[in-house]
C-alpha cells in the first residue's frame, strides 16, 4: 500500500518544530510501524536528507523505548506499543500523523524523541523496597497470597513508556506512579515504606512538569500493558491513609 506520513520534525529542543509530509510506497501489511519508518529513513539518508529520529530498542513490546502519537492516539490504533503495531492496521491511501509524546514533563530531544527521565526521578525517591544485597531472608519465609501477588504483578508490568502522560489532557503521570505504588504496596515486603513511598513519589511527580489527575481514564485506555485505573484508587487510598496516620506531606 501507499501512504502519506505527516511527521513532526524538530532539530533540537531550542528550535521550533513543524509537521513535514513524506510519501511511502509499497508498504507491506506485515511490516511493523517502525520497520516502515526504517525503510523511509534509509531512503532519506540516500537522498541526503536527515533521517527521522525516534527511540526504539527491543521491538518486542517490553523495553518501551518507542512511543509515538499516531493520528492523535498514543501508540496508535491498537492498544499495544508502537513497535508491535503492524501496517495491517492501516489502509492504502491513508494519511498518518506522527508526533512525539507531548507533555511539559517530556521535553523533545529531537523529532520524535523525548526526555522521559522524570519517570526515573519519581522511582528514585521512593519506587523501591530498601533491601540491600545480602540482607534478604529465605524466600519462603513470607508467603504472599496469590491474589495479592497476581495483582502486584499486573501493576508491575508497567513498562514506563509514558503513553499515559501523552494521552492525558492534563499531562498527568498518575497512572505511572500509581502502578509502582500499587505493585510495592500489595507485597508484604513493601509495607514498612508504604506511607513514605506514596508521599515522596507524589511529591516528585508534582515537582516535575506533569499535570494533576482528574480521573479521565484515557491513560488506562491507551496503556499497552492495560494498567488499570484501580491503581489510581489504590494510590489515593494510600495517600489519604498516610496523611491520616499523621504523615507530613512532602509537597
Amino acid at each position: 500500500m501507499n501512504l502519506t506520513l505527516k511527521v513532526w520534525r524538530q532539530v533540537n529542543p531550542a528550535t521550533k518544530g513543524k509537521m513535514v509530509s513524506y510519501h511511502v510506497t509499497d508498504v507491506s501489511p506485515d511490516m511493523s510501524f517502525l520497520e516502515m519508518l526504517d525503510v523511509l529513513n534509509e531512503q532519506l539518508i540516500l537522498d541526503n536528507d536527515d533521517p527521522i529520529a525516534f527511540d526504539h530498542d527491543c521491538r518486542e513490546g517490553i523495553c518501551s523505548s518507542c512511543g509515538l502519537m499516531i493520528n492523535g492516539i498514543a501508540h496508535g490504533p491498537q492498544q499495544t506499543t508502537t513497535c508491535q503495531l503492524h501496517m495491517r492496521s492501516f489502509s492504502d491511501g491513508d494519511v498518518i500523523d506522527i508526533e512525539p509524546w507531548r507533555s511539559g514533563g517530556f521535553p523533545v530531544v529531537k523529532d520524535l524523541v523525548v526526555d522521559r527521565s522524570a519517570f526515573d526521578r519519581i522511582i528514585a525517591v521512593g519506587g523501591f523496597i530498601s533491601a540491600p544485597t545480602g540482607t534478604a531472608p529465605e524466600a519462603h519465609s513470607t508467603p504472599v497470597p496469590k491474589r495479592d501477588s497476581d495483582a502486584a504483578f499486573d501493576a508491575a508490568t508497567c513498562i514506563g513508556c509514558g503513553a499515559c502522560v501523552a494521552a492525558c489532557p492534563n499531562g498527568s503521570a498518575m497512572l505511572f506512579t500509581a502502578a509502582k505504588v500499587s505493585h510495592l504496596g500489595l507485597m508484604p515486603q513493601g509495607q514498612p515504606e508504604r506511607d513514605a513511598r506514596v508521599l515522596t513519589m507524589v511529591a516528585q511527580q508534582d515537582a516535575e512538569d506533569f499535570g494533576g489527575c482528574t480521573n479521565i481514564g484515557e491513560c488506562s485506555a491507551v496503556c499497552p500493558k492495560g494498567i488499570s485505573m484501580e491503581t489510581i484508587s489504590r494510590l489515593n487510598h494510600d495517600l489519604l491513609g498516610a496523611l491520616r496516620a499523621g504523615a507530613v506531606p512532602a509537597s
Partner: protein
Amino acid sequence: MSLELFSVGDPIADTAAPTDVPIGERWSERKFRARLVNPANRRKLSVIVVGTGLAGGSAAATLAEAGYKVKSFWFQDSPRRAHSVAAQGGINAAKNYRNDGDSVHRLFYDTVKGGDFRARENNVHRLAEVSTSIIDQCVAQGVPFAREYGGLLDNRSFGGTQVSRTFYARGQTGQQLLYGAYQALERQIGLGNVETHPRTEMLDLIVVDGRARGIVARDLITGQISTHFADAVVLGSGGYSNVFYLSTNAKGSNATAIWRAHKKGAYFANPCYTQIHPTCIPVAGEYQSKLTLMSESLRNDGRVWVPKERGDKRDPRDIPEAERDYFLERKYPAFGNLVPRDIASRQAKNACDEGRGVGPNGLGVYLDLTDAIQRLGRPAIEAKYGNLLDMYAQITGEDPYATPMRIYPAVHYTMGGLWVDYDLQSSIPGMFVIGEANFSDHGANRLGASALMQGLADGYFVLPTTIANYLADGPFEKVDETHPAAVEARQAVQTQTEKLLSINGTRTVASFHRELGRLMWDLCGMERSEESLRKALDRIPELKQEFWTNVKVSGEQGTFNQNLEHAGRVADFIELAELMCVDALHRNESCGGHFRVESQTPEGEALRDDENYAYVAAWEYTPDGTPPVLHREALEYEYVHLAQRSYK
C-alpha cells in the same frame, strides 16, 4: 590449519580460584582469602560500570550500597530499558522446592553437561551455589514471582533438565528481575551515591600503566566525546548476537564496549559459541528488522512437530495425528520437547532441510498447544503464557490458541565474550566483565533460564566481593583527561567518528549490517564447515574494505545522530565477525551451539574432540592486520565426568 589466520601464544590459566580445597568450598574460601576494603575507605574508591542490565544494574546498585563511588553509563534513555528486560521464561535456582531431587550439585552438573563440557567447573559451581541467594534477594525487593494458592513460589521446567527449578513471573521474568535491580539502582541514585550518564555510549577503554583506569564515551544527545576515570572499570554491556543483524536482541544491543576493550588488550574467549534459540517467530520479509523469541517455557506445554510427508501444505488442523512427526519426542524420549536449545534448533533445521518445513517459505515448524489447552483449559494457558501468545498474534496476525504457532530458530545469545578469571577480572588488570559480556559460565551452550541467573549472580554476589580484592590496592594514582593515554584514546575516537562521517559513499549503514548478518547466518550459523568459514573469511575483509570506503553516514558529530551510532557499531561487528569465523574454523570439533559438519556422530549429533579441544580459546588482538594470537586455557573436569551428552 594454516598458520596465516592466527598464531599460537602462551597458554593461560585461571589462578584466582582456590583449587587446593574441594569444589564445594572454593567460593567460601575465595571470599575468605579476598582482601577487604573497610567501609570508611570505600568512598575514596570509584568504579565505572557500563550497562544497566541484570549484571550492570545489580552491580552498580550493590557497589553503591557498599559505599563505593559508582559512575553508571547506559545508552538508552533509562536504565530500565536494558535488554535484560526482554528475557521471558525464568531464572534457575537450586532451591529444590519441588522436592524432585534438585541440589546445588545437580544444577552444577546440568549446567556443565548442558554447556557440552566447555565451561569452567569452578565458575559453574559457584553459580549454582549463589543461585538460591538470588531468589531470596529478588523476593525481598518485591519481585512478583508466580505463586501458588498457598502463597509459596511456583516453578516450571526448562530445557536440558529433569527437575522443576525455574522461577518465573508469567512470561516477563526478565522485566521483573530487571526492575528489581533498576529500583535498587535508582534508590542509590536518589541517595546521591551514583553519578549517572544516560544516553552515553562507551567508545574506548583507557589503560594507564597496565591498569584499566577509565573510558572514552560519547554523549548521544550532544555528541560530545569525553573521558571518565575511576579505580576500576566494569563492563556489563551484554552480548553480540547482532553480528547476525537479525537476532532476538534489541536493535541497540552491540559489541562496541567489549570489542574496543579487546582492541586495548582484553582477551576475547570462544567468540564462535553462539546460541541459536529454537523457538522464534519466523522471518516474514526482506524489511524485517529483528526476530522475536517465543519463550522456551512454551515447550513445557507445547509439542513441536512437522508433517511426515514433504511439501504437505494442508492447514495444520487438518493433518491427522498419524501423519504428524513429533520429532523431538520421537528422537529424545527421555527429555522430549525439553531437550537443550542447540539440539532442538538443529533438529528443526534438519526437518526443514528435508523439505518438511511449514509456512510460506518452508522455514518453520509447528509449536502446538492444542493438547495442553484441552488438558488444562484455556484460562490456565493464558495465565502461564498470555503475554507471549498475545505477542505472537500481534506479530503474525494468527491466533495461537486456535492454530499451531509457526516457529524457527534464531540467534539469541552469545556464550563467548571477554575472557575473565574466577574473580571476573579480564586480562587487563582493573577491568572486570560481568553477565553476557563475559564468557565464563555457559560453555558451548547455555541452558534456558541460566542467563538471568548468571547476570544477577555476577552483579549482586560475585563481583562486589572480588572487585574489593582488587580495590584494596587503591586508590590508584590520580589520572585526568590530560594524561597521554587519555588524550590518545579520545583522539582515536574523534578520528574514527570524523572518518565515518567523511566517507559519504553510496551504501547505507543498514545495508552493510544486513549483508554481514546474512553472510554470518549462512556461513557461520547453525552449521559451520571449513568450506563455509573460509568463504566467510574471504568475504568479510572485502566487506570491511567496502564499508570504510563506501558507507554513507548522515548528519554531524556534535548532534543527536542515530545513524552515526549505528555506523560505529557495525564497524565493530564486521571486525568481530572475522574473529568469530577464525575461532569457528580453528575449533575443528562440534560442541554445543558450535556445530562443525565435519564432526558429528552417525546420528548427526555434535561430536566433541576432548583430546584436542578441551580448552577455552582466548584470543589476543594484534594491530595492523596481523593475525590474532590464540592463548589456550586447558579445561579440567574433576567433578563432572566427560561424556557424550545424551538426552535420549
